[in-house]
Structures are given as structure tokens and as C-alpha cells.
């Protein structure tokens, strides 16, 4: 039923196809890319070549192929986005489930902190916490220093769980008063069992929706950080969507449109596609939702 409703959402199906193609292109990067991540397309002069047969999306300031770099960049961004979203969702589910099921003081504190962080400018919090945890020696020994991808995943997960926790909590609050939970309690099920076997599986719809939005959030946040030069650093010429978009900042004034347009377009396409999928998931899994037809 849910599946059929999801498939009737045309934009979401199109988005799935598009994302599938992108993931394939990333997995098959030895075939789909035309040059190495740091390879120049030809001997100098090769900087800022406009798109041509030699380099489909043009070349950057040191003559590297933008098309190939875009695929490498999408790879890094998708990996960061997926890992961050997974960690945030797991943490968010646990915290949200405990807060919603237990209630009381833990619930109050968690929700107050979440409210505060959600209201606070995200970028500011991200930058301040980035510096703070980046200076804690024993922590960076585990998660790598400020410029590593692992660090970025950890940093984004610190904020990512809150939105998920809030949604899961709301869902659990409304579920726990229902008759089947009461029935489970009546036959002597433990609280842990109720949460694991009844409450979380029944919240799977909202969880999937927040997972998909968490992926978009992480990808955009990573590229925001990188745009201002605080993201994962380009060690050995490694790249990410954020780094590519950040490079556009300097290139536009000189009119090198291909440096700006292609990465921006790719980022918007990815976040648009995942947003559509999340929206369709919400429509498909929420039986109460009346789409206004």
C-alpha cells in the first residue's frame, strides 16, 4: 500500500532514478571519470579552459577536468551525507524513544536543548563547536583532526540527531497511549520490549522521512562548511561538492561560469531529489495525511 502510494509520486520516482544514476556513476568512477582527481587534461596552457571535447565541463585553475572532479566530489559528499544521516538517525531514535517513553526530567532537558539548538543559527554553532572539539586532544585522536572527513561526519552528527529525536519522540508520545501498547503491557511485556518490538517499528515511516532529510541536511551543511573554508581539506587534491562550490566563489568574478554552474547544479539536483523522496515517503507512510485532492 505504502509502496504503491510512493510509486504514484512521479517526482519521487524520477528522483530515485536520478540518484541511482549518480550512485552508479560514483561506484563505477574508474569507468565514468575521464581523468584522475589530480590529473591535468593536457600540458599547459590548460587553466580555465571552457567546456570542450577535451574537458566536458571545462578545467579549473590548475587545469584539472571539472567533470571528473565533480564525480569524485559527489562521491565524498554522498559518503559524508549517508554516514552522518545514519549516525544521527540512530542516536536520534534512541534519544527520542527514551525521551518520549520515559517522559519526566530527561524528556524536559533533551527537548529544551534541542529547541535551543534548532533556534540558534546553525552555521555559527557548527563553526564554534568545530573549533572547540578540534582542540580537544584525545577526541581528535579518535575522530581525526579538523580537516578529515571523519571529523566532519562527527561534527555534523552532533547536530543531526536533534531533528530526528524530536520527530521520533512525538511519534512515540502519540503511540504509547494506544490500545495495542496497553495490551502488550497487560500481558507483561517489559518496557524495553515494547519500545523495540512495538513503538519503533510503528514509527518507521517518520524515521525514514527524517533519515532522508538528514542526508540532505548533512550534504548541504558539509558544503556550507567547505564553502567558507572550514570543511574537509583537499589533501592530495581530494575533493567534495563543497570544495568545488567553494572554488566557484573566486572564479565567478572573472566570468569562468563553468566552475560555478556545474557543481552548484549537481548539489541542487541531489538535494532536490532527496527532498522529493522524503516528501513522497511522508505522503506514503502517513495514513492521516490528506493531500488535498
Amino acid at each position: 500500500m505504502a509502496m504503491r502510494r510512493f510509486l504514484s509520486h512521479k517526482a519521487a520516482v524520477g528522483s530515485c532514478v536520478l540518484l541511482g544514476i549518480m550512485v552508479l556513476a560514483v561506484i563505477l568512477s574508474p569507468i565514468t571519470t575521464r581523468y584522475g582527481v589530480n590529473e591535468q587534461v593536457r600540458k599547459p596552457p590548460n587553466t580555465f579552459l571552457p567546456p570542450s571535447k577535451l574537458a566536458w565541463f571545462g578545467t579549473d585553475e590548475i587545469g584539472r577536468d571539472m567533470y571528473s572532479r565533480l564525480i569524485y566530489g559527489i562521491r565524498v559528499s554522498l559518503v559524508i551525507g549517508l554516514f552522518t544521516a545514519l549516525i544521527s538517525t540512530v542516536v536520534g531514535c534512541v534519544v527520542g524513544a527514551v525521551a518520549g517513553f520515559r517522559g519526566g526530567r530527561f524528556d524536559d532537558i533533551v527537548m529544551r536543548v534541542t529547541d535551543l539548538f534548532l533556534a540558534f543559527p546553525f552555521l555559527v554553532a557548527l563553526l564554534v563547536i568545530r573549533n572547540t572539539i578540534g582542540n580537544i586532544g584525545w577526541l581528535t585522536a579518535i575522530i581525526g583532526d579538523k580537516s578529515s572527513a571523519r571529523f566532519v561526519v562527527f561534527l555534523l552528527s552532533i547536530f543531526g540527531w536533534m531533528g530526528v529525536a524530536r520527530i521520533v519522540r512525538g511519534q512515540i508520545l502519540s503511540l504509547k497511549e494506544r490500545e495495542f501498547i496497553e495490551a502488550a503491557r497487560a500481558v507483561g511485556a517489559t518496557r524495553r520490549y515494547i519500545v523495540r518490538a512495538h513503538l519503533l517499528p510503528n514509527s518507521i515511516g517518520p524515521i525514514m522521512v527524517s533519515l532522508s532529510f538528514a542526508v540532505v541536511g548533512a550534504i548541504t551543511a558539509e558544503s556550507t562548511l567547505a564553502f567558507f573554508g572550514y570543511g574537509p581539506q583537499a589533501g592530495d587534491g581530494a575533493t567534495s561538492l563543497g570544495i568545488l562550490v567553494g572554488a566557484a566563489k573566486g572564479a565567478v568574478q572573472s566570468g569562468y561560469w563553468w566552475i560555478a554552474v556545474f557543481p552548484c547544479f549537481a548539489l541542487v539536483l541531489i538535494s532536490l531529489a532527496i527532498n522529493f523522496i522524503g516528501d513522497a515517503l511522508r505522503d506514503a507512510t502517513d495514513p492521516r495525511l490528506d493531500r488535498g485532492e
Partner: protein
Amino acid sequence: MSWAIPTLILVTFLVYIALRLGTDPLQSYLRTNPRATRVKIAQYKAVNGLSSNYVLGYFHWLKNFVTFNWPRSIKGSREVWPELKDSLVNTIRLGSLATFVGVVIGLLVGMFAALKPGSRRDVAVNTVAFLGISIPPYISAVLFQLLFAVYWSRWFGHTLFPTSGVYPPGHTGFDLLLMLKHMALPTIVVAIQVVAVYSRYMRSSLLDVLNSDYMRTARSKGISERQILFKHGVRNALIPVVTIAALDIGSIIGGLIISENIFSYPGMGVYFLSAFATGDFPLLMPWMVLVVASTLLFNLVADVSYAFLDPRIRLD
């Protein structure tokens, strides 16, 4: 409501610790003044209250802050307040213009879509709103910059919207038209986000209201459609939207920071990122206090306005 002041103190304390740990004010002082004498360093530490005990240090800072005895900036040893005030004024001007434009357009678009749910125009509005949400502000900013700084003048031979600053370099005095022209692009970048978010809120909120029973009652009393829509529909639909609006301040500030930086608009965002890059503690702390305070203030406004608009809700 009484939680606001303790929360402000608690949060600024956390920010204080985070900044002390993250930017290390002493290190950034030594970076900009590599040949500072021992006396100078001791003096700097005393003025800023940089004791190794963070609690003591915080209260020292708080006392100085409240008595308006603010230490000077690390870089260039400038007075902090005049700089903060100027950027605050610039940001309020940009932020309120962008929010106003965005909210008005967003609400109208949302209403427009909700009146004919499922129609072609509803789908179109929905798609465009989705696009707006999916375009991060720095991307629209970069693309606008590309279009207006480079291609517009190349194609049409004149600049329509300048892409940096408040006035052209060397300009003195006040010129409203010139200022608005400079503000156009940063405003649009922030407003795109606002429009996308609000049109969706308004659409779903108005749809909820229009499908409710009292709308049928109103109709059965024979009130004109227009009166039903505005008196009963829009007014009730605005209740949740207003609350969300007040809570949305964080994302608007975030958008402003990005937009200001790309268009070199001298506001709070440029102030913050440049102070953050040099680790200028005396510049950063007052900025943080302002942002935390305004976040809390708007949270408060959300609570109060919710109770005010919906008499069924009581504040305790």
C-alpha cells in the same frame, strides 16, 4: 518567561567556554602581536580576565560586559562597540527587508496554492517551493553574482545590481536608491529561502483550516466567500505560521551570514566570520551575546504570540 535570563547566562557561559577552548584568545593575541613583551601579555590577560579558571574568567567577563567596559579587539586594538553597532544596523536593515519581502510573498503564494489544492497552479507552487528549499543560499548567491557582476554588463552594457558593499567605494552621504540597489541581491538570496518555507507552511495551515467544520458553518450562514476566506480562514491559518516565524530567526540569521559574506555587505555576518577567522575573542563574545539574546527573545515572542492569537492556550 522567567527562564529567559538564566538561560541567557547559562548559554553565554557555554559559549564562553567553547570560544576559550576553540579559539584560545591568548594564542590569537600572540599570533597578531608576536613581539609582545611579558608586561603587555600580563596586561592583556588582566583586561580580558583570561584566568585559567573558566568560571572566574566568565564572571570577570560578565562584569565588564554589563558595565560596558569592553576590552578592545585583538587585531588592530579597535573599540568593539562602534563596529558592532554599525554592522548590527546594517544587518537589521537587510534582515528586516528580506524577512518582510519573503514573508509577504510567501504567505500570498501559499494562499494562492491552498485555494485550489491539487490544481496545476498548486503543483507549480509546490515544485518551485521545493526548488527554493533545495537551493542553499550560497549557491543562489554565487549564481546571482555570476549573472549580475559579469554577464549582465557584458550583455546589456550597464550594471543593474551591484554585487558588493552598501555604496560604491568612495561614496559619501545617504542615497536611498543607491543603497536599495546594493541591497537587492543579498535581500533576494535570503528572501528566496523565506518564501519557500512560508508558502509551504501557509498552504498546509490554510488547507487545514479550510477543511474544518466551522468553515462549513460560516458558509451555511451565508457569509460571502471573501469574508469567509479572510475573516475565518486566513486569520486562523496564521496562528501556527506566526509561531513558526518567530522560531525561524536562526535560519534567517544563518542565511544573512552567508549572503552578507558573498556580497561583502558590512553586517553581522561579515563581522562574525572575519572575527572568527582571526580568533578575535573580544569581538566574538558580544556578537554571540546578541545572537543568543535575539534567539531567546524570538522564542519568547513565539510563546506570547501563540497565546495571544489563540485564546485557548494559556501561558503558565
